[in-house]
């Protein structure tokens, strides 16, 4: 029988579940989000733990670096990310500070690989986000990244666009990051009423100027479609102003 433990999908709830496993020496077959249906051989267990805030305790014990690693894994879209985190931390008890050097362990290698993947996508989106200016000067952007990177890029834009009001919406996860010139808050889409977005008067002109620049700057004699696609995959194009018009053409 496979013992599948479920949790509510929040990071802190996962930490509580992991702490419970480590304290009681339980070895889960897998860990899944609520809503997991399971198959014939699965035994789905919901412990309904009393969730305490364990973040600082975890940081104290496992160290900042390892917590950073598992948080990035948590943000990823990997299927068995919770189990990878479990095994990564489990191995910490054995290898302590040397854990990250043990690349021959599957859980370490996977953790490092996924972290890099999430970090890379977040870095890409620091460049790929395209804001539109609304009538009330608020900047508004939509993205649909593979991993849940909204928080990471919000930290970046908080520093960069300090004196602007901005919203970034993750279409895939239906969440929005809202910045009010002091801090950003990540809300569910239905908690916020954003309809009837009216663009500012100069928005279309600016978009046209940018498109002009983009179309001019490529050197014709060096055209390299494959190279462009490697760096800027098509899956992101519909939210990138200057290339969104090319999607229909090539289909």
């Amino acid at each position, binding site marked *: 029988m496979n013992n599948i433990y479920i949790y509510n999908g929040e990071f802190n709830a996962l930490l509580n579940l992991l702490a419970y496993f480590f304290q009681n020496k339980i070895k889960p077959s897998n860990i899944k989000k609520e809503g997991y249906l399971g198959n014939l051989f699965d035994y789905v267990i919901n412990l309904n733990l009393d969730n305490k805030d364990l973040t600082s305790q975890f940081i104290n014990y496992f160290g900042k670096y390892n917590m950073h690693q598992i948080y990035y894994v948590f943000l990823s879209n990997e299927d068995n990310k919770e189990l990878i985190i479990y095994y990564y931390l489990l191995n910490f008890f054995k290898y302590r500070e*040397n854990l990250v*050097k*043990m*690349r*021959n362990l599957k859980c370490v*290698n996977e953790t490092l690989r996924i972290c890099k993947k999430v970090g890379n996508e977040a*870095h*890409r989106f*620091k*460049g*790929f*986000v*395209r*804001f*539109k*200016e609304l009538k009330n000067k608020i*900047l508004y*952007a939509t993205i649909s990244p593979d991993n849940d990177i909204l928080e990471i890029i919000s930290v*970046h*834009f908080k*520093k*960069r*666009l*300090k*004196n*602007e009001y901005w919203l970034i919406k993750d279409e895939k996860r239906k969440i929005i990051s809202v910045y009010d010139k002091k801090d950003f808050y990540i809300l569910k889409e239905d908690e916020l009423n954003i309809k009837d977005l009216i663009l500012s008067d*100069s928005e279309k002109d*600016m978009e*046209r*100027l*940018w498109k*002009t*620049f*983009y179309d*001019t*700057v*490529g*050197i*014709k*004699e*060096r*055209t*390299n*479609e*494959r*190279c*462009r696609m*490697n*760096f*800027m995959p098509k899956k992101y194009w519909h939210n*990138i*102003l*200057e*290339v969104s018009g090319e999607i229909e053409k090539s289909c």
Partner: protein
Amino acid sequence: MELKEKLQILADSAKYDASCSSSGSTRINNSGLGNAHLSGICHSFASDGRCISLLKILLTNICIFDCKYCLNRRSNNVKRAIFTPEEICEITINFYRRNYIEGLFLSSGIIKSPDYTMELLIKTISLLRYKYHFGGYIHAKAIPGASTFLLKKLGSLVDRLSANVELPTENGLKLLAPNKNMNKVSEIMGFVRDNRSKSYVPAGQSTQMVIGATNETDLDIMSKSEGMYNSYKLKRVFYSAYIPVNKDNLLPTLKMPPLKRENRLYQADWLLRYYGFKVDDLLDKQNPNFNILVDPKASWSLRHLDEFPKEVTTCSYNDLLKVPGIGVTSAKRIIKSRRYFKLTFNDLKKMGVVLKRANYFITCNGKYNLNQELFSKNFIEANLVSLDSANKLVSNVEQLRLF
């Protein structure tokens, strides 16, 4: 003239400058707009696959110089335009707020005199920094021949300053750019090197050379680069394959820009900066040009096959870097991990080693991954050539020499 048309003309004239980097600066946002990101950020990629991080424009394409290879030379009959400082600020700020760009790359044709041009650049960038409180990345071109105090001023406003040497030898320069001379560029580089600090050109200086417009060899080009890296502490030298934009009997007629050659020069440039190679290791008087079919590192390894295979579990970091298929990242990972467990070929693969290349040059715990009898120059070279994906891409590379 409409703003859109100006932008088109002045972006079109600026696009042949290869530099696109926005890294190396940590400028922070003091309650204004924008900051610099240490690693740099690419915001878009143009149809030629080059990254767009900065709004790369000329202040004006009016120019008193007559450099043969340049679109904006005085004798060319092209439409001329000039931006006002306000126009540049408006575009930069509006693009930056919308996250289209990481900052501004401002260059210019020489209008009236070097000093006058430099003053215009300074006026524009001061406006951007002090009136618009712009904290993003700015890369400006220093104009050769301008006064030192203007150079001092400009450098204190920007993140990166560059002056292009354009051609690796004085002769080439005399031939194609009669108004330029090497000494003026060297003066700028020397000045920037001596004054560089956190508040003066924090991201360092770079330069560019045009490849294939004159008959210099790769050895000439790489020696020039090495010399500049050593004496001026440049961050980067960019290589730009010559694209014929003008007709002139002093210029070569090319069907295709020498992209493959440019690629090999960049690979060699990385070997100089990160892999501990010297130009003398890579090229000599008998072989003054790179092999187009095999990359410079592999071709070095093939010439020094007696030093291989290397044992990855014991050899030094510098030796690891000499192995084709092992880069800086994977070499560091190997060094970090190999004390803690017994490496296998599978582990190497997981660490990012490109085994299909490295296999020929390494042993792991004394084991060679391929048939030891096939360890010969011809066999390895043939296999490496077929692996070079670029060879498959560039259709006009002639398949010669082998088999």
